[in-house]
């Protein structure tokens, strides 16, 4: 906040500040360059940050033309530079604050001796310098389908989106967020499809953000969230272009942020987090099957180890006779109550995951093998856990990784700890207590003002075509109506549904 107020004050004061004072401030930095020379009787100065401009553009487009062409036009003014210098959108300004901002973004400022209070601003920014050129979307991998992902440069990302959404209705709205970083943030939506209320909500929330440096979209995600006290992600963040484009055509709003290879998609409902673009690339029967497996995985991952705790601590009557033998055999050496046993293993797996994520890839692989196989085998041999639990916990961990959105899979891994504790206190009833608490919590969540549990609650039957089941494309012409889109159909539903008689 303190940093911000400083910025605000400065901005108010700056119109009175002469430009010369600005150069004085900037000169403190060693990468600030000031060139003065006389061409054709005109004395001109050029100011820029060495570290921000592309030297090739500076030399070939700006310096070369200034030095060669100004002598031919002796009466040239700053406003006429656009005729000489082959750079798009040259701006002339007297506003020191604007000049400062532009120069700090890689613009070159040109001033004439005769017009001391004005500067012409030409873009020579080295946009891609030090940034990734491509992204193979390895964090949201799919076997079928395009592999191109978003990169850190927002300009490239906009280009990638516009290449697929070829319609004049695709609107990009730009704004700058962050008192220090002045990050370029772009709201993308399709006019006439997205609900204007949503667009307005997103714009308002973004405008009211007060922050210093926006490192990543994930920060915007948290600042935009309707409820900050929830472990659940309220917006999808994706690095896949197909996913972002799909969101746009179904009427959602995409927020892109310079410096982040992730796009933010909202309003999102809980089901969106469990769908993968690959579902749409496979035949619908397979897509549905894999989707159902994923849902089963989530439920299994959350409930497996709590049920183990509940049954072995309180409800051992529930184990059938045939199953009792193996369980007794594997647990007879374990000195702990089931809940400690489960917590021990769950935490081991969390440690492995966290260590694997922090280490370089090659080391992480070794660690996975050492941790997974050696520790697992050794704990069972040492009698710290039972083999059955090892299987349950490993399967539950595996199942939690099937969720395509990383944030959601983290949440699922987190929420099972309260479940385990509830199961340890009150057995099966405790598990259902936790389920109740979870359902209430989910019922209270909203994403950009839309209920999070849509289309389950409020119940929308039509929208179920694309939740548990990935219906064939002949059925999915309608946009999900719970987003209240402005236009109802994605493509002509009747053409897709045309049926022919046998042998016709």
């Amino acid at each position, binding site marked *: 906040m303190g940093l911000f107020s400083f910025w605000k004050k400065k901005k108010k004061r700056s119109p009175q500040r002469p430009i010369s004072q600005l150069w004085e401030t900037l000169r403190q930095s060693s990468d600030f360059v000031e060139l003065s020379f006389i061409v054709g009787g005109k004395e001109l100065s050029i100011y820029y940050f060495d570290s921000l401009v592309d030297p090739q553009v500076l030399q070939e487009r700006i310096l070369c033309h200034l030095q060669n062409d100004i002598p031919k036009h002796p009466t040239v003014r700053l406003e006429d530079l656009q005729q000489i210098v082959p750079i798009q959108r040259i701006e002339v300004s007297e506003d020191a604050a604007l000049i400062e901002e532009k120069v700090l973004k890689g613009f070159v400022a040109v001033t004439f001796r005769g017009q001391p209070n004005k500067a012409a601003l030409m873009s020579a920014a080295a946009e891609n310098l030090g940034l990734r050129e491509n992204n193979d979307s390895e964090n949201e991998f799919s076997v079928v389908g395009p592999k191109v992902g978003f990169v850190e440069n927002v300009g490239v990302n906009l280009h990638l989106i516009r290449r697929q959404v070829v319609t004049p209705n695709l609107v990009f709205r730009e704004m700058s967020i962050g008192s220090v970083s002045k990050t370029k943030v772009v709201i993308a939506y399709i006019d006439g499809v997205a609900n204007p209320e949503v667009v307005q909500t997103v714009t308002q929330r973004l405008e009211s953000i007060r922050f210093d440096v926006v490192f990543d979209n994930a920060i915007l995600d948290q600042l935009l969230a309707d409820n900050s006290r929830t472990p659940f992600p309220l917006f999808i963040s994706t690095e896949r272009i197909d996913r972002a484009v799909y969101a746009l055509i179904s009427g959602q709003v995409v927020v892109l942020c310079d410096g982040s290879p992730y796009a933010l998609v909202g309003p999102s409902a809980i089901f969106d987090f469990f769908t993968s673009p690959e579902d749409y690339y496979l035949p619908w029967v397979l897509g549905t099957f894999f989707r159902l497996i994923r849902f089963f995985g989530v439920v299994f991952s959350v409930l497996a180890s709590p049920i183990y705790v509940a049954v072995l601590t*309180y*409800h051992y*009557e*529930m*184990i*059938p006779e*045939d*199953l009792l033998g193996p369980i007794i055999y594997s647990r007879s050496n374990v000195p702990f109550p089931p809940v400690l046993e489960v917590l021990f293993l769950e935490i081991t797996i969390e440690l492995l995951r966290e260590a694997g994520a922090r280490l370089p890839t090659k080391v992480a692989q070794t660690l996975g093998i050492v941790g997974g196989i050696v520790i697992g085998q050794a704990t069972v041999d040492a009698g710290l856990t039972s083999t059955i639990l090892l299987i349950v916990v490993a399967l539950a961990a595996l199942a939690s990784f099937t969720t395509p959105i990383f944030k959601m899979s983290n949440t699922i891994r987190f929420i099972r700890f309260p479940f385990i504790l509830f199961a340890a*206190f*009150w*057995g*099966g*009833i405790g*598990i*259902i*207590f936790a*389920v*109740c*608490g979870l*359902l*209430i*919590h989910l*019922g*209270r969540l909203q994403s950009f003002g839309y*209920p999070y*549990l849509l289309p*389950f*609650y*409020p*119940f929308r039957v039509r929208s179920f075509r694309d939740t548990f089941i990935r219906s064939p494309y002949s059925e999915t012409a309608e946009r999900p109506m719970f987003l209240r889109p402005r236009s109802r159909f994605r493509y002509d539903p009747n053409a897709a549904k045309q049926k022919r008689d046998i042998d016709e």
Partner: protein
Amino acid sequence: MKQAIQERFLISPFLVFFVIHATQVGVGALNFQRPLMKEAGQDAWMAVLMAGLAAHVLIWLMYRLLSHSPSGGDLVSLHEQYFGRWIGGVLSFGLLLYYALAALTVLQAYIEIIKVWVFPLIGAWQFSLMFLLLTYYAVLGGFRVVAGLCVWGVVIPLATIFPMLFFPLEYAQYRNFLPMFDHSFGQLIKAAKHMALQYLGFEMLLMYYPFLKQAPSSQKWAHAANAFTIFIYLVVIFISIVFYNKEQVAHMTWPTLTLAKIPEVPFIERMEYIVISIYVLVVFPIITVSVWAATRVIKQLFAVQQRRSLPVLLACLFVGTLFFQEKTDIERLTEWTAKAGFYLVAVYVPLLYVYVWTAEKVKKALQQKP
């Protein structure tokens, strides 16, 4: 005090189906067979049907009554309009006491089951505390969240508990139905009166009526909910009649739970533990809806914020649960609530309707005279 409720807090008319059904089916579904079959024996299913049809009539009556309420309001504003601030206030206070009593009864009855079947040694207060904390969290979210919980409270048990009921049919004796029509009408009426508590729950409608979008159009959903409740009870009583004989049921406190012991699958036994656990989801909506309704009455009556009255009410309920530890006490409590609910729904609401109806007529006649 009485402004129209904003649209974003309203629920769609069809959700009434879930709210009414969730509040009707409660702990009673586990143990209603014994008193019923004591009176009506193998003809108990007729009593179930009769009580259900009576509930249909009462729901119809309630909708008629509430449509007379000023600007689609609830019973409290109706009381105030027709009885004035003081008498109306006293009547509304009775309603508040009833709602609190209903929540307490359901909570107690369920905790009793936990104590008998699952955790004889763990202090009951832990469960009531957990329930009330969760209720606090749910009611804080407003009526939309409460109604959402009702949806889950219908869908999840329907998908998990309901199929389990059919396993005992393997051992069914269909001859148990005979002789049919063996009981007098008086006996059936008596049995149907026992059934009243099982159908209670729709009286919460008196408070959440203004929270329904296009409230009058929701009536068909309310009737559908009641019809579905009849269906569920009929299934349970049919299976109980064909599975048990009359003498067996007389010795059982929770016949439905014993039914749940029958299913067998290779990896799990004693399904009644699952039934009892999932029953949290059946019981919980009733508690939240009645607590919500009670705080709503307080808000309308005393202009106290629901946010403020909720913790106080929950604390009272918690203290209340500490007093009813013995089984006989809990049975007496259930009896009281059944009686209070019966008189509220079957006696008070019709009388009120007649009063409101005549009052309207008189008013119209007076207006036309001059």
